């Protein structure tokens, strides 16, 4: 119940709960709106609020009319409000989905690591392409134009490497801006990834040792259609 109530006070762009200053701003906006309407429309509506002299006992007074109309409006709003906040039986008995902070979730089938409030998921495709996805602590994606990545292939454990020592490879942004990638030789399985975000640069090491499974998770092919 408390978690549901607290999540009702989440807000806007980021999933963190509403802050005190924002809640106060909402309250002030709400209160002043109604104050403004009440004060500025009073001259127009004041004749309705004055008790009228009844000439005929069968005629309803303006005051009773106002109350009746307000009652009808309130009833309509309550009915519509009940309909709009309805829940299904399933929703009533299940826990609401919670956007968790700092969960480590593989979304693209790669390896996930974290530093600060950044998540990086590095995917090695069978063709040798290496993709880097960056997300925040709530797993919301970060567009590729906001960070830069360099990949340095490392010598594998059994020393099986080509003669040419590979240099650091620059990545390029995917067309849909979801990740950065570079195409490397299929023989490379270990990488040092240098991720640069505004004001911060981090070096990460990934070891895609496949079915040996000693150091990292199995290699996954990139899902089709992405």
């Amino acid at each position, binding site marked *: 119940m408390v978690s549901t109530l607290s999540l009702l006070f989440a*807000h806007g762009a980021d999933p963190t709960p509403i802050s005190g200053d924002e809640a*106060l701003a909402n309250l*002030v906006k709400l209160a*002043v709106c109604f*104050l*403004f309407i009440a004060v500025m429309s009073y001259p*127009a509506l004041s004749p*309705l609020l004055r008790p009228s002299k009844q000439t005929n006992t069968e005629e309803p007074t303006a005051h009773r009319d106002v109350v009746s109309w307000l009652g009808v409006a309130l009833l309509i709003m309550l009915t519509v409000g009940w309909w709009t906040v309805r829940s299904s039986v399933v929703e009533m008995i299940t826990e609401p989905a919670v956007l968790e902070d700092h969960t480590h979730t593989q979304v693209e089938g790669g390896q996930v690591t974290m530093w*600060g409030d950044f998540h990086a998921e590095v995917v090695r495709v069978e063709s040798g392409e290496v993709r880097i996805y960056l997300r925040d602590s709530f797993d919301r994606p970060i567009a590729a134009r906001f960070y830069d990545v360099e990949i340095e292939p490392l010598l594998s454990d059994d020393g099986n490497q080509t003669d040419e020592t590979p240099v650091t490879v620059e990545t390029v942004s995917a067309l849909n801006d979801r990740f950065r990638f570079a195409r490397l030789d299929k023989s490379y399985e270990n990488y040092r990834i240098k991720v640069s975000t505004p004001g911060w640069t981090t070096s990460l090491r990934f070891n895609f040792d496949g079915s040996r499974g000693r150091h990292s998770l199995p290699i996954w092919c990139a899902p089709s259609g992405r």
Partner: protein
Amino acid sequence: MIGCLNLPYDLKRFGVHTNQETGGLSIKMETSRYLASCHSFFIYSSVVVLIASLTIDLIGHLRGLATARRIGYLGLMMATMGMLFSFMTGNLAAIWAVHSHVPQAPMKVHESLATITCWSLIALATLRSALERAPSRRLLWGYGVSVLLALASLWQTGQRGFDLQMGASEGPARIGALDLATMTLESTIDELAYSESMHHLFGWLVLGLALLSAYQLGSAKSNTKLLAVAPIVLTAGGFFLLIFSDVDAWPLATDKAITDPEVLGHKLIATLMIAVGIGSNLLRKDESAEVIEGQERLLAVLALVGGGLLLTHIPTGSPYAESTIGLHLQHLLIGTLALIGGWLKFIEQSLSKRSLSMRTAWTTVLFMIAAILITYEENIPWYLP
């Protein structure tokens, strides 16, 4: 003062690559950048006018000078309008600041305090209007306390704004993942299309009200059946907006909370439309009331509140996207027209004799708002070069 917000900008951060084809687009972005640079100008000039008008008003009250009180009253209205413009230019400045890597958390605090300040000034203007109409000692004390609270809020807002400017001048800070992910947010095509269709629908509603106003302007006698049109349109429109604005906010849940500033703004204007619609309908029942005048006054009140809500609108779905720049520019124009129209109607009704030119201006403003809403786009507006 103009241009003192000298933030660097790079269109590539918006995903726009400057080339011959997008040369036109960069000109439109320049409009938003220019308006963003006017933020400081509006702030400083509004504060100066506010302090001066409060001082003159106080002297007028203490010395019993009616002219001084009137000048103070008008100055307060001008300062409030200036603050609303500064809020909107601040929204545009925030977009450019974020894309220049100014941290978002302190900006959000500044934005919340600015909301409190703007609406405190609107409350001040409201109480001052009530004082002008029905002066009383209790109202005067309430006004005095509100002045102190509004000034305290203004001071705090200014402090945070100053800290932001100092921080920005130190150069780009380390930006966290939360900020970068928020910068990445963009509305989907469906969401943009839905928002556009809602604006078009309400454009037709405002067009109906404009046509009704034009008919009442032209006809010597009032048609009692037509007096029901405005209340029905407003009430029905209000209920429609209450349900269908931000459909992902229903049922009350976690996807989009009702305390989200954007959702709250939409539900608030819907509630006010219903309230004004019901009030306009009740006026028809009272034989002693001047129905057309009363309905037009209520519509003017709605225009003023709507203008205030538009100019202090905080988009939260994709707050720093390119489409949001277009949203702010269009809201600035519609909000300004709404405020102009509302004030024209109030001034016209305060005159001893009905002014045909002012009533025509009010109707013209309604037509202009309807035209802008019907042609609304969730992007840089069509009427910019």
